[in-house]
């Protein structure tokens, strides 16, 4: 492991590179040094690798310390304040240790004298919301109240919900049992025991990282929109805008997820990272690799268009409310299968040996939906299924779907609402009829744009 020629200069230039301090001349010189031999490049790779390790290790350490301190969450310039406070405490402790141990003990044990200030408003929703004082005395809240520093609120009941609104209009919505504390200095401590939390952070909270504690994870979020769900020891975090670093308590394993991703972990498995429905609004299935998980339908391999190996045929399904022929997409109730915009188009390559009518239902998660909230639509199509027996591709704007809404007078639900809104996430689509459907799909796909009107193309 020999040192390369010009080792000192090399390491200094790499260090300046890592600190983003290199000027043009130095960059050219570093390029030359790295071209000079494999030893120089090895040193460079080591230093870059070391830099990534610093980030991983010290970020994990910072999160663990915050957790040990009671997971104090920065709020409104608190990132800077918290860091300064920790440094100050270390220095003070070192000085005190040198002077007198009893003084250190007193410093460590004394309670800071803080005048509580109003830091947020809590708005009850469903279920029971309790305000707990510092002695643990609980008062049930039924109307919005202002929270002072040091307050803690507890949400009880499976279907309970409440919102915390901060002065910068940051809003944290809780669903299911959970506890939120506001520290005496205005910082927030958020613990999610069970249930669902969604946060839209305003300017102040978004300025510093936001920390959340669940049964098996510590979450540090930098960003403006995220959700977290805790069910039976399973933690799931999704980031709609920003980034989050998640640390598993059991072993300190970390992952970082960014806009459009989610991560799931429990006490047994490591982090599993996935993508939220494509933010490009695309989705497709052609059945070429067999029957995909979660679909309802029968895989067929005969009578298909040229070059196609498989298709999906409607199957007879017994439901409590009747018997139906159906083809159904795999349901994804948490994140949806794909995201819709006002120009999204559904494309179907299909054939119906016996032309007849059928229903096309779609379930969605509306934008900014409350936990569990879904919307239902039916397709009003002029072209699908159509009276044709040959293979064709029909392109149908999603604007052709109509929403099921309550009648303003009777309250009964009818498909008389508008089309899906931009940002709505489709959870599943079902093609169904109470009679026999000799319907086969060769391909189903979604694009974020396409023809504004329905269009049919016969396959050659």
């Amino acid at each position, binding site marked *: *492991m020999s040192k390369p020629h010009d080792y000192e200069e090399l*390491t*200094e230039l790499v*260090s*300046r*590179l*890592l*600190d*983003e301090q290199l000027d*043009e001349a130095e*960059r050219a010189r570093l*390029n030359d040094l*790295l*071209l000079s031999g*494999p030893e120089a*490049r*090895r*040193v*460079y*790779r*080591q*230093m*870059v*690798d*070391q*830099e*990534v*390790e*610093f*980030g991983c*290790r*010290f*970020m994990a*350490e*910072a999160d663990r310390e915050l957790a040990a301190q009671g997971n104090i969450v920065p709020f409104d310039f608190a*990132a*800077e304040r918290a*860091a300064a406070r920790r*440094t100050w405490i*270390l220095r003070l402790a070192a000085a005190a240790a040198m002077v007198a141990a009893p003084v250190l003990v007193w410093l460590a044990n004394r309670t800071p004298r803080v005048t509580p200030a109003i830091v947020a408003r809590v708005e009850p929703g469903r279920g029971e919301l309790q305000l707990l004082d510092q002695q643990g005395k609980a008062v049930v809240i039924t109307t919005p109240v202002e929270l002072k520093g040091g307050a803690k609120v507890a949400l009880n009941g499976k279907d309970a919900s409440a919102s915390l609104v901060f002065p910068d209009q940051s809003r944290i919505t809780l669903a299911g049992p959970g506890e939120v504390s506001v520290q005496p200095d205005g910082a927030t401590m958020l613990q999610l025991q069970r249930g669902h939390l969604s946060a839209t952070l305003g300017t102040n909270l978004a300025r510093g990282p936001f920390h959340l504690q669940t049964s098996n994870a510590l979450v540090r979020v930098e960003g403006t929109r995220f959700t977290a769900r805790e069910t039976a020891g399973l933690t799931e975090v999704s980031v709609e805008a920003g980034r989050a670093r998640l640390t598993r308590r059991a072993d300190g394993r970390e*992952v970082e997820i*960014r806009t459009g991703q989610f*991560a799931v972990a429990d006490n047994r498995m*490591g*982090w*599993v*990272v*996935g*993508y939220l429905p494509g933010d490009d609004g695309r*989705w*497709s*299935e*052609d059945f*070429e*690799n067999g029957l*995909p*998980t*979660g679909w309802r339908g029968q895989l067929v391999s005969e009578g298909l268009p040229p070059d196609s190996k498989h298709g999906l045929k409607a199957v007879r399904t017994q439901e409590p409310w009747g018997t139906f022929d159906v083809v159904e997409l*795999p349901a*994804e109730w948490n994140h949806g299968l794909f995201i819709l915009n006002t120009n999204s188009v559904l494309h179907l390559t299909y054939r119906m040996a016996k032309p007849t009518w059928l229903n096309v239902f779609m379930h969605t998660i509306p934008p900014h939906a409350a936990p569990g909230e879904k919307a239902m639509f039916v397709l009003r199509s002029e072209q699908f299924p159509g009276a044709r027996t040959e293979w064709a591709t029909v392109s149908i704007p999603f604007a052709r779907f109509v929403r099921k809404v309550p009648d303003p007078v009777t309250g009964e639900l009818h498909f008389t609402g508008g089309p899906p809104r931009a940002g709505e996430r489709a959870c599943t689509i079902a093609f169904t009829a109470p009679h026999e459907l000799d319907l086969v799909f060769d391909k189903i796909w979604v694009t974020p744009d396409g023809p504004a009107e329905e269009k049919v193309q016969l396959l050659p």
Partner: protein
Amino acid sequence: MRDGANQAEFAALYARVHLDLLRYVLTLLPDRHQAEDVVQDTARLLWRKFADYDPAQPFLPWARKFAYFEVLKFRRSRALREKYFSDELLDLLAEEHAADDNQLTQGREALDGCLQKLDEVSRQLLKDRYGDEIPLEELARRQGRKVNALYVVMHRIRQRLLECVNRTLKAEGWT
């Protein structure tokens, strides 16, 4: 093909190599933010190409190929002045990266011991800089020091740790 089983399999594989990809991309594109963007683009590309992945082969080398092309794409999209290294150097770095894998992995383990030997002031600086992500300019302001002095301190810490790691590796028989 985006069925749930594939997604879970991909997620598990990707979670395992995410940091390795970041290390690799950062070597070729030494700007943390740009590197993270490229890794994200790579992840999307990997997911789109996942049907082509042969599970009999290791995932990381397969993923690195796509990361390399994403780096090239990124460089093409930027003005020449923003390219950190020449094309010749980029190719060398990409080629040689895999050869150092084992040694870099051992180096990460050795780093644990070396960090423990670090003095408290240096450790605190790393913690502030990387744990709390405080810019060196801000740290210099808080400590009443010149920022250039902190850059020098950071360089010395990196160099000390690098040499400590290499001494450890040498003692373990790495050449």
